[in-house]
């Protein structure tokens, strides 16, 4: 029997995407829910079931044998937190993924739910001391608007970790320099946690990985979906994205989370959802190039020839820096190439030079420079929590 299924998260539940699946395995809805929130979706059968995508990457299937159309999910309905190894050794490539997943679990377990990812709790349990160099000899530094960011004790041995940042006006830049060349990563100014580590696999390849958690966990989740091309799940977060955008009316809000929401609407051509607030992003946060890129693309999609000078001005102003998100970098270069003037192409080429050898699967603008021809190091950049799977 078809009907409207209401799904609610009780107090204490983490933010998570819920897929509603019919008995013959059609995904009939995707809902982004948090504690004390409920949403409804039309289902073809009351025997439809739920798949909850937990922050640690696990997917939990929940069925209701009674087929009730009102379901409340409580923390007790979920399995206990995933077991995490604090000392996992790396032999195969997949071990590095598992290591990052362990690390995300350890960080979440060791810190109180409402605290920022600070260092106090870790220092109190006698964690290793901060370091500035990875095992492969790569040095790591993080530059914020206010200057270099202090290193803090790692969660796992062998990582270089930085204290949280809280800069709303501009991004941070993470700089790594070592045998694989220089890796430069643009990051949001608000970071709950950021670290780098290097691991050598059995065939001698060094994997240097960077993981970052921005100021907003749903934004990280959406960014991970967008980067992986998983637009069905990304679209499931559209309501959250609207909320993030509305919050930028408040100057104390997180502009970086709003940018991620805007990239979703631009990617899916839902231009009606890109309201005036995109212009506000460009104007109120002039040192964040992504706002200008988004505003320019909003105008490009509108196709009004009278706005060409405005579009050009926005894109050239953005090209004076580097967008924080890789999506922004791609759109910026595409926009300049579409304008097609000599100065536009020059600006696009200069941007390419400055951005370096791009990491195509990174959520943030990340480029390798001065890479030695014989280097075997592999670089990977992702959000904390993106390492799911087996």
């Amino acid at each position, binding site marked *: 029997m078809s009907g409207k299924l209401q799904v609610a998260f009780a107090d204490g539940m983490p933010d998570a995407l819920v897929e509603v*699946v*019919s008995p*013959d*395995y*059609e*995904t009939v809805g995707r809902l982004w829910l948090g504690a004390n929130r409920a949403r409804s979706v039309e289902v073809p059968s009351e025997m439809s079931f739920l798949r909850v995508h937990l922050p640690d990457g696990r997917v939990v*299937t929940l069925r209701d044998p009674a087929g009730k159309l009102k379901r409340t999910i409580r923390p007790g309905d979920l399995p206990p937190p995933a077991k995490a190894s604090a000392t996992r050794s790396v032999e*195969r*490539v*997949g071990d590095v*993924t598992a290591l990052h997943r362990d690390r995300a679990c350890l960080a979440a377990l060791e810190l109180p739910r409402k605290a920022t990812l600070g260092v106090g709790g870790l220092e109190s349990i006698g964690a290793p001391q901060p370091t500035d160099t990875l095992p492969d000899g790569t040095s790591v530094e993080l530059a914020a608007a206010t200057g270099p960011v202090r290193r803090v004790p790692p969660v796992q041995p062998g990582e270089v970790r930085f204290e949280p940042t809280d800069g709303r006006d501009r991004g941070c830049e993470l700089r790594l320099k070592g045998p694989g060349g220089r890796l430069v990563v643009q990051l949001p100014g608000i970071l709950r946690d950021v670290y780098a580590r290097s691991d050598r*696999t*059995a*065939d001698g*390849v060094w994997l240097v990985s960077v993981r970052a958690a921005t100021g907003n966990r749903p934004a990280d989740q959406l960014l991970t979906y967008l*980067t*992986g*091309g*998983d*637009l*069905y*799940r990304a679209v499931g977060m559209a309501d959250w994205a609207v909320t993030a955008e509305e919050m930028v009316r408040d100057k104390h809000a997180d502009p970086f989370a709003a940018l991620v929401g805007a990239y979703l609407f631009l*990617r*899916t*051509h839902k231009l009606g959802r890109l309201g005036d607030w995109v212009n506000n992003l460009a104007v109120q946060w002039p040192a964040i190039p992504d706002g200008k890129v988004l505003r320019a693309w909003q105008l*490009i*999609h509108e196709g*009004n*020839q009278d706005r*060409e000078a405005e*579009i050009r001005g926005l894109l050239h102003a953005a090209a004076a820096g580097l967008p924080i998100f890789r999506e922004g*970098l791609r759109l910026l*270069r*595409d926009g300049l*190439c*579409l*304008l*097609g003037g000599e100065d536009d192409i020059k600006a*696009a*080429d200069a*941007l*390419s*030079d400055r*951005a*370096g*050898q*791009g990491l*195509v*699967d990174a959520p943030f603008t990340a*480029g390798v420079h001065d*890479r*030695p*021809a*014989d*280097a*075997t190091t*592999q670089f*990977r950049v992702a959000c904390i929590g993106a390492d799911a*799977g*087996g």
Partner: protein
Amino acid sequence: MSLYWPDDAAAVSTEPRLHALVVAVGDYPYLSGPKATPEGKKYGLKPLTTTIHTGARVAAWLTAGLPDFARKEFTPAGLNGYRNAGRPLGSVEVVYSPPDGTSVLTRPDGKQVAVGPATMAGIEAAVGAWFNRCNANPENVALFYFAGHGISTTAQFLLASDFHAPDVLDPWKNCIDFTGLRLGMRRCKAKTQLFFVDACRERPFDATAQVNPTGQSIVGGVKWSDPPPAATGTYYAAAEGLKAYGPADGPTYFATAVLDALEGAGAGREKGTRKWLVDTFSLAGVLGPLTEYLKDEHGLAALTCSPHPEGDPAPINYPVQGYVRVKVGCKDAAKNSQLALQLTRPPDDFTSAKTEARPWRGKLAPGDWRIQMKFDTFDTLDLSETLLDPVHVVLEDPV
């Protein structure tokens, strides 16, 4: 002439169809071998064979589902091929430069087809023919697949077979500016546009070529105000080095993932019809997990992918059956050695004896499975697993 199917260009329909262009480059004579130029040799690029297998496999997959292609002995094992009643196959254009210089491909119907070389001139001619076919009807689907050497900065460049030819003054002339080509395709009326960039990146080349690579966008004249296609899917592989790119005697790992997804690993139920469907969004969503699966299976560090769908989801393929890639085993190698498996979802019932390779890898239909892991010296693990994601991993150790 590089039309792989149909036999006669005049037979190409202007009704809504999928029109494909496959570019497979393995031979780079001016970069290595007796014809190599001193400047070309500096790039350190080697000829490729995996790209040639890829081009042949993609072309074969596109045509394997044609109703009149009955000679299945020529169809690569396990391929059901492209199936979309709303957008049947319209044409397949192939340009192909293998290291051995042959230019004949065997289609799934057994016919030998001579195709043109993947030189810049050959690619430009093929793009022209393909563009015009795609442009003939806004309901068309345009599909572009490139396999060969490439370089990615913030833009993507793809090397034609005659890259760095000695009689060309600009060494970058015989190179595709893929970003420019993709943007240029905004001029094309086809509302659904699919691009697969299956490019091998070699570290010495990347290091040498970091200074301003350029290339030909081939399709120019686009205006910034031209509206974008309603649905675009751009799917990039980024394999660094030959080992990560593909085996010498088979298709690239990326092509393996793409065809696996299209054959059913990326399928979901279509709303209303209940048919299995792979669309631009679902294909993108599964390429990452399938790439991770292949990395794990082959121990590859340097293989990644970047799927980039845009606009609305658009149907690509209606596979015969959706399925899930499954890996089952123990974390502990000693326990793996005594593991026998039984996988049951009535009426399906598979067993795998303990003598078989572990972890067990296979394809199972989506749904609720009972997985029994039996050991000589431990209690049986009896698991209930709901298989819905494209890749499902069960790694459990008995206590």
